[in-house]
């Protein structure tokens, strides 16, 4: 009996348009966690003090890490659609590693995409991290899944995705954060147990109740320079002023190119944010600062 390689254990999502499953492209790892929630059933009529756990409910969580950020717009749309979609895990073929084989351990269920993080760091291949949470029963696959092969292979250098930050909540931001080195977009969906006595079985059924998003940016501190006026970009002083004012400001995350990598390209996300935390680091090496921006109201995928 051969050992299954982790590379051949994949998560596939159901594409309702194509009526086929598709692998999560360029995945580097995935984890499926079956959770049984138990209660101790020991009582005074039972001899002994050892616990007697009994299963009262079940749920399942999945996490996937990937090097593809081509679908960041689609994922940000999916998470705020507040609807679950079908997902399976299965053994995949060694030839194309996308064909699902219908292994005995393969399972299918409805899952909310309840947390996603996209990381765009300087001189680094961008990554995404997705987390899914089940709603309803996980089922054994009754047929071998039909899979649509996807084309992948393009990497995104993190420096080509940048944060543009405004100084108020009206004008479209036109200035990047100067000297930026790190950037992440994070979006999470709060789920609540929606089971009742009417619910069949012991699988937890969930409902989405709240959406939160935030952006984290890290940048170098420039010495004795008014960045805003000298290079038309946002620097530490301006972000401190935004933080002190405490008001939401417009922001957008977009693909960039051109001189100093500041030319605005296709917009990934736009919205309003408040600066919730600003940390300035002064180690023996290079001084830098990180800014935590919390989404204020809904974000728009694209412009």
């Amino acid at each position: 009996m051969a050992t299954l390689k982790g590379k051949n254990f994949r998560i596939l999502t159901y594409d309702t348009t194509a009526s086929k499953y598709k692998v999560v492209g360029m995945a580097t790892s995935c984890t499926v966690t079956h959770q049984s929630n138990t209660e101790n059933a020991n009582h005074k009529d039972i001899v002994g003090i050892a616990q007697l756990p009994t299963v009262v409910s079940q749920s399942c969580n999945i996490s996937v890490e990937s090097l593809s950020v081509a679908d960041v717009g689609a994922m940000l749309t999916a998470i705020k659609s507040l609807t679950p979609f079908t997902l399976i895990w299965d053994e995949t073929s060694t030839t194309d590693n996308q064909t699902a084989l219908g292994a005995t351990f393969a399972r299918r269920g409805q899952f909310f995409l309840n947390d996603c993080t996209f990381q765009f760091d300087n001189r680094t291949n961008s990554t995404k991290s997705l987390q899914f949470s089940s709603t309803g029963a996980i089922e054994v696959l009754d047929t071998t899944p039909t899979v649509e092969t996807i084309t992948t292979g393009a990497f995104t250098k993190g420096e080509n995705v940048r944060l543009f930050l405004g100084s108020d909540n009206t004008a479209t931001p036109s200035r990047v954060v100067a000297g930026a080195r790190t950037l992440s977009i994070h979006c999470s969906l709060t789920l609540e147990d929606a089971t009742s006595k009417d619910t069949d079985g012991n699988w937890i059924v969930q409902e989405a109740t709240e959406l939160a998003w935030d952006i984290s940016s890290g940048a170098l501190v420039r010495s004795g320079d008014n960045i805003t006026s000298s290079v038309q970009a946002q620097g530490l002083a301006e972000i401190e002023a935004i933080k002190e004012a405490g008001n939401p400001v417009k922001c957008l995350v977009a693909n960039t190119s051109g001189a100093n990598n500041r030319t605005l390209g296709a917009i990934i996300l736009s919205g309003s944010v408040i600066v919730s935390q600003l940390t300035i680091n002064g180690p023996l090496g290079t001084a830098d600062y990180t800014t935590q921006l919390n989404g204020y109201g809904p974000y728009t995928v694209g412009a």
Partner: protein
Amino acid sequence: MNKTKEKTIDEQNQEQNQPAYVAELLLNGTVTLTANTREELAEMVDNIPAECHYGAGAVGRHPETGLYSLRIDLTTKD
């Protein structure tokens, strides 16, 4: 949407005088643009009609071919 699906991409292209990838986006809800440079990609994005609400992914570059790619998905405006 059903009405749109009755027409081929070429037919839509001819009728509306728009690039084939715009018709593909409208038909399938998603399209991946490919170009030799970032500037060419930007030009392709500019050709997508303003009334189409769409979301963009991050521009990727294929390590072997060197081609740039960008996935576009139709979305709804908030």
